[in-house]
């Protein structure tokens, strides 16, 4: 059988193939990625769409967890101060109710309790980065302002709503309790009970002082119960932070298995491709000029 005398197309195809391999290997080494365009690996490129979105979300959820934690800690410490204030008010009330305190001292105690009331109101008006923490979702104005029409002397300007922060896909954590629930609940009115104690102390009636003091004890228990909410939310967020860290690790490793190149492998591929390319070129250079003419003695 006659052999194909024209080796050029074969040699060109080989050279093109070996050069394509060099280019691919070079691009992988240079970019550090095995998937630069979707056609490099359609399935990986499609999976990366979800990965890109998830990664950005997880980053933001982690930031949300951190900023929410600081906010919850601020609210929690305000609640702690309120608890201390109420404890102090109870001991003052007990002191005023024992019947041996004279009227002047009762007035002094009443002034002290009034001071406690004001400090509790100040805590209820705590803000974090410009947003009031106990106004429900009305975070732009102070929840409690002095009001002569209110029995406690302070009116609630907030609402009864709560906010939730996204800290995961489908995971929203409630981050606030409205003041109307914590401080001026119609059943257990913290501010109201303090103001009742002030009036009772001013009137000097031991029975009234006693009942007002016991109302504050109830309020203290109530506030302590409510405070648990913040503790729970904090521990929930701490757990979520750990799981977000894990998710970040997972997403990064998924990304790396999808589109990143194994550097050592890529370097080896490159050097192999170069060797193959050199061999193809050397073979072409050797074979192409070979004809019978090289061996014929030119006529004299």
């Amino acid at each position, binding site marked *: 059988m006659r052999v*194909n005398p024209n080796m050029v197309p074969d040699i060109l195809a080989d050279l093109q193939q070996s050069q394509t391999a060099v280019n691919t290997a070079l691009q992988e080494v240079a970019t550090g990625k095995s998937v630069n365009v979707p*056609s490099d690996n359609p399935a990986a490129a499609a999976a990366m769409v979800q990965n890109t979105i998830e990664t950005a979300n997880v980053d933001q959820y982690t930031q949300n967890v951190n900023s929410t934690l600081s906010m919850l800690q601020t609210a929690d410490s305000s609640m702690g101060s309120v608890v201390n204030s109420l404890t102090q008010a109870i001991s003052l009330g007990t002191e005023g109710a024992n019947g041996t305190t004279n009227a002047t001292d009762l007035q002094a105690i009443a002034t002290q309790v009034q001071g406690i009331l004001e400090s509790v109101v100040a805590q209820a008006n705590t803000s974090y980065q410009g*947003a009031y923490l106990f*106004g429900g979702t009305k975070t732009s104005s102070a929840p409690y302002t002095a009001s002569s029409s209110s029995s406690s002397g302070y009116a609630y300007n907030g609402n009864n709503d709560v906010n939730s922060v996204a800290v995961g896909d489908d995971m929203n954590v409630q981050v606030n309790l409205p003041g109307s629930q914590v401080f001026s609940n119609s059943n257990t009115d913290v501010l109201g009970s303090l103001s009742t104690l002030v009036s009772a102390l001013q009137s000097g009636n031991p029975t009234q002082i006693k009942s007002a003091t016991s109302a504050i004890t109830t309020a203290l228990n109530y506030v302590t119960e409510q405070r648990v909410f913040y503790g729970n939310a904090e521990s929930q967020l701490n757990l979520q932070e750990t799981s977000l860290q894990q998710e970040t690790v997972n997403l990064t490793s998924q990304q790396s298995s999808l589109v990143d190149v194994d550097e050592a492998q890529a370097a080896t591929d490159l050097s192999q491709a170069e060797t193959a390319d050199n061999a193809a070129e050397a073979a072409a250079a050797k074979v192409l000029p070979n004809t019978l003419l090289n061996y014929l003695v030119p006529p004299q």
Partner: protein
Amino acid sequence: MPDLIAMGGLNTSLSIGMQALEVSEGALNATSNNIANSNTPGYTREIPEISEYPENVISGAVTGGGVTLNGLRSVRDELLNLQIQQQTSAQSSADTESSALQQVQTYFSSTGNDIASAFSTFSSSLAQLSASPSSGAAQAGVMSNGKNLAQAFNAAANGLTTEQSAMNTQVADTVGQINSLTEQIAQLNGQVHQLTAAGQDGGTVEDQRDELVQQLSQLTGISVTQSNDGEVITTGNGTPLVMGDQSYSLQTTTGSDGMQHVLDSNGTDITSTIQGGTLGGSIQTRDQVIPSYLKQLNTLASQFASAFNAAQAKGFDSNGNAGQNFFSVPANPAGAAAGISVSITDPSQLAISSDGSAGSDGNVANLSAALTNTLPSGQTPSQAYANLVFQVGNDVSNSSSQSTAIGQNILQLTNQQNSVSGVSIDEETTNLIRYQTAYEAAARIVSTIQQLGTVTLDMGSAQSY
């Protein structure tokens, strides 16, 4: 009459020597032409057809009649040519699709400006908003990331449409090239027919025609058959392009869809039946592949915009008003991806609040859910987009690996064709030596006979003295 036999013998040898010289010259001619055309595309090597001349019978004695050159014959394999033409059409179609989609897929690559990146920043800015609903920066972030998302959709849709119109231009250009080729082929066909009718080898004219048919097969899928009048070339679907020495030109006209349609010589629209070649590839990409991407992109843009707008409507903006549409999309879904834009003019119009108070983030969860909930298409936005990315990537990868595979095939066929028709310098050099030697030997016969003739004449004159 022994004298006659002797003289007849010398004359016969002389004429045989002359014939041998002529045949060697003819053979050398073929060799030199082969070497000269060794790199000519489409050239088919020629071999001298040499045969014995009828023998002489003189007075019952049989002597060799010498040699004769019947002509030069091109060595070709028509079947291989046909196979190469078919594969060329298929490869050229895959190449056209592949190179167009290479352009398209850059819009779906992870560049930072692509739709996936825009979705991810939009989504994370909404998550940020849920932590700080009253922060102006967080609100502005959502609005500007929403704009980026809309622009990413616009860019992808525009990229697709640009490629589509590039394909459309190519359709018109290719039809022009096809017409000019079929005209030339018809002309050569006529010449081949005349030559073969006269019992001659088509030779170089046939080579030229085959080369043009080969070029034509790059432009569109064709079917070639032989008839009494020469080759008949039709499109794969049977629309005549060349019949004998007559060519039938295709026409283009702008259809109701604004695209170039291909008509046969009778004015019938054959656009959808054209397959193979640059023309088939461009039509396929323009009418099937890109529209399918555009459709998915438009569905995603319009359904996502509606879902997000519905989420906006559930809440109240920072001014206490009911949420208005965040995205605006053209009423016609076909232009959704190209026309999607952010319709709110101020970040305060984001419907963050669920109760109308400025500090509430109650509606942010609804807004975020629009990105993760299933759309009417049955997929979440990211799934729908991921599917599209997969499809684009898969199409590019398929068309280019198809082209590579066919390329291997063509290489094999070309090798086979070359092994039949290609010029081998070694072979021609060997032939050159053979014909040179034969020529030298024939020349020696002529000069020897001439000397013998002189001797014979001298002998005669010596006798007369």
